[in-house]
């Protein structure tokens, strides 16, 4: 065991000293953060300022729309009718981003059009629509009822209808969360692939530079293989920890500085909003369009649980595949010879990712259940399932899957260990499938 540990430490030191390790440790999480940043930006462009011209030839809106100025939209009114071509090319209209056309029939057909120069964000569209709707509501209440607008709004309560699964009345699972699970699974397989290839290259390099025989004079092949897998795995784990730290700090930084309003309680707790105030109602309205991704990242995903199981499945899954990569590396006659036998492994990894996607889309199917227990696919499928949430009383399924993966890993470790032991001192041959079967015996 001591020798395996020494080999692991050497591998670890060698890996973390490489330029590619440093690059991946820094660039990897930064890429994720950049992607998240853009998703935030695209989902919540609240700071953009719009200049909107309202054409209201009938004077229905009486040249007013809001009791007070909106920081992000400035409305101007035109009494006459403006042709679209004129708005498009007219010099005096160039300062406007959009033109809201309020025609005479709006009170009956409830239809208006906004002609924009550059498509507004979903949130901006919602805002304009909401503010226009409210102004028309005032006009309609005044024209057709005896209520004051304040009284009317007291009576008028929006109805929220939520569609819920009967087996998941609290809406704990969702596709969106499943995607997070798939993301976790993808990270597992990305690391398995990257570091599996590192194992393969390291084994075949030791073979080709013949240090392997010196090592085998001190340790047995299984200890050597195990040490190598553990060492490279530790490097992978360190890299993962760096990813977690950088992404975690990055998300915190974004929340605190770049997007301070992302988690504004008024955006989050719709039910608690006061419906009396103009602000409250507006917040309610806009919260419907609230960026679900932000909500997902900061609130809905149980990162503690996910990360804990991620680590478990990452470790066991890594051992499962890592030993296979080591066996392929040990079987090769030269450093480049093993490429053809890596392809089936890569296909298996890709298939596992597809299985995760399939399970996300068809969570109840029997094939998803099979993928959930199949050791080749379980690390990613379990992550998806975990993110979606197990049905009450069915969380034991996760442990059965983990147990199957552990047992399979031990079996593969034994089998791959044999291939490794028999293949590691074979040089100069062209590896064929029959070698694997022969060396397994």
């Amino acid at each position, binding site marked *: 065991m001591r020798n395996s540990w020494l080999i692991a430490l050497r591998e670890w030191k*060698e890996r973390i000293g490489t330029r590619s390790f440093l690059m991946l440790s820094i660039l990897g999480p930064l890429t994720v953060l950049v992607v998240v940043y853009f998703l935030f930006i695209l989902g919540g462009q609240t700071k953009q300022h719009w200049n909107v011209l309202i054409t209201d030839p009938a004077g229905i809106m009486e040249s007013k729309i809001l009791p007070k100025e909106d920081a992000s939209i400035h409305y101007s009114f035109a009494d006459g009718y403006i042709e679209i071509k004129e708005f498009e090319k007219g010099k005096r209209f160039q300062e406007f981003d959009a033109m809201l056309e309020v025609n005479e029939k709006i009170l009956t057909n409830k239809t208006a059009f906004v002609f924009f120069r550059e498509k507004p964000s979903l949130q901006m569209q919602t805002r304009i629509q909401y503010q226009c709707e409210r102004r028309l509501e005032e006009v309609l209440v005044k024209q057709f009822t005896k209520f004051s607008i304040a009284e009317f709004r007291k009576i008028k309560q929006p109805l929220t209808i939520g569609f819920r699964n009967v087996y998941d009345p609290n809406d704990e699972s969702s596709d969106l969360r499943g995607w997070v699970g798939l993301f976790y699974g993808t990270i597992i397989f990305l690391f398995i692939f990257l570091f599996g290839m590192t194992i393969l290259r390291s084994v075949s390099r030791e073979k080709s530079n*013949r*240090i392997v*025989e010196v090592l085998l004079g*001190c340790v047995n092949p299984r200890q050597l293989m195990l040490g190598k897998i553990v060492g490279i795995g530790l490097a992978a784990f360190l890299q993962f920890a760096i990813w977690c730290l950088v992404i975690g700090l990055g998300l915190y930084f974004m929340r605190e500085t770049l997007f301070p309003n992302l988690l504004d309680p008024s955006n989050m707790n719709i039910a608690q909003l006061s419906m009396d105030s103009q602000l409250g109602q507006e917040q309610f309205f806009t919260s419907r369009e609230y960026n679900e991704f932000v909500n997902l990242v900061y609130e809905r995903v149980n990162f503690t649980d996910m990360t804990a199981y991620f680590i478990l499945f990452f470790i066991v899954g890594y051992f499962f595949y890592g030993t296979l990569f080591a066996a392929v590396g040990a079987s090769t006659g030269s450093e480049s010879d093993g490429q053809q036998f890596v392809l089936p492994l890569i296909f298996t990894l890709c298939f596992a990712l597809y299985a995760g996607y399939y399970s996300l889309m068809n969570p109840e199917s029997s094939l998803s259940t099979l993928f959930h227990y199949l050791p080749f696919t379980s690390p990613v499928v379990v992550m998806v399932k975990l993110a979606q949430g197990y049905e009450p009383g069915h969380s034991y399924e996760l442990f059965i899957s983990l147990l199957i993966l552990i047992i399979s890993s031990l079996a593969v470790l034994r089998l791959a260990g044999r291939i490794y032991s028999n293949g590691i001192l074979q040089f100069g041959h062209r590896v064929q499938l029959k070698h694997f079967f022969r060396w397994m015996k």
Partner: protein
Amino acid sequence: MSYSLESNTMLEVQNISKSFHRKVALDDVSLNIHKGEIFGMLGPNGAGKTTLIRIINKIVQPDKGLVRFNGEIMTQNHLSQIGYLPEERGLYRSMTVENHALFLGQLRGLSKADVKLKLNYWLDKFDIQNWRDKRIEELSKGMAQKVQFICTVLHEPQLLILDEPFSGFDPINVELIKQELIEMKISGKTIILSSHNMESVEAICDRVALIHQSKKIMEGRISELQETRKKGEYAVRFRGSMIAFVNALWTGFEIVDKDILGDDKFVVRVKMRGENKFEDLLKVLIGQINIEAAWEVLPSMQEIFIDLVQPKIENNHAQ
């Protein structure tokens, strides 16, 4: 079998057989290597030497037979008492000499402090202290070979197994390594040497075994082997006339070969006929030529090796 009487045996290889998918690599090979001796393992390429060495080092498992180390059945634990330098050896190119020594030394059971102490001793001894922080890729092949040798002996093993230890070394370093091996032998270490360099084998080995076509075909002390395979030839180095030398001989002697060392200086190899002895040869020559030296010609290890291996190869070709 009792081993109390065999206390002089460091390593016993008992009836080892090994096949690799129908190809027999070793066929019932047995060897006894005594404590404190340098044992040469000879044989042509593909004879099975490396397989046997790998079996001794527990790198390969035999199909049949066993290996005893110091009277005990060889286990993984004994490996820390063995230093193994394989024929095809490598080092991690990006590691420094010191880190290499630390890694391999610790694998063989030494503490960090011990490795540093012993490495210091060897670097001093070979006068290569300035190599300590050099990366392996910065060293020449010969320099790397020296580092490999140091890493092999660093943990002061009881048994040293060296597969072609002189390959890659220049003559000066071959002598240096030979000297080190002799010193180790004097200090009580046992050394197994597999080499094609017959001159070196002859110079430093006490006993040898010849493995050929998966079988051990001969084992013994070098002097004994030379004695049993000598051809009754004697050499005489003299000054004078070659004609006088030939005239002095009568029918009881046969000239086998001659070397001309100068205008009047020769070495002639003579074979006895009938019951004639070395003394008879000297008697007929004295007074005819100036004898500088005369000795019995013993076959070199190279000759013994070729003698033993060649007929078998020819037989195989004939079949």
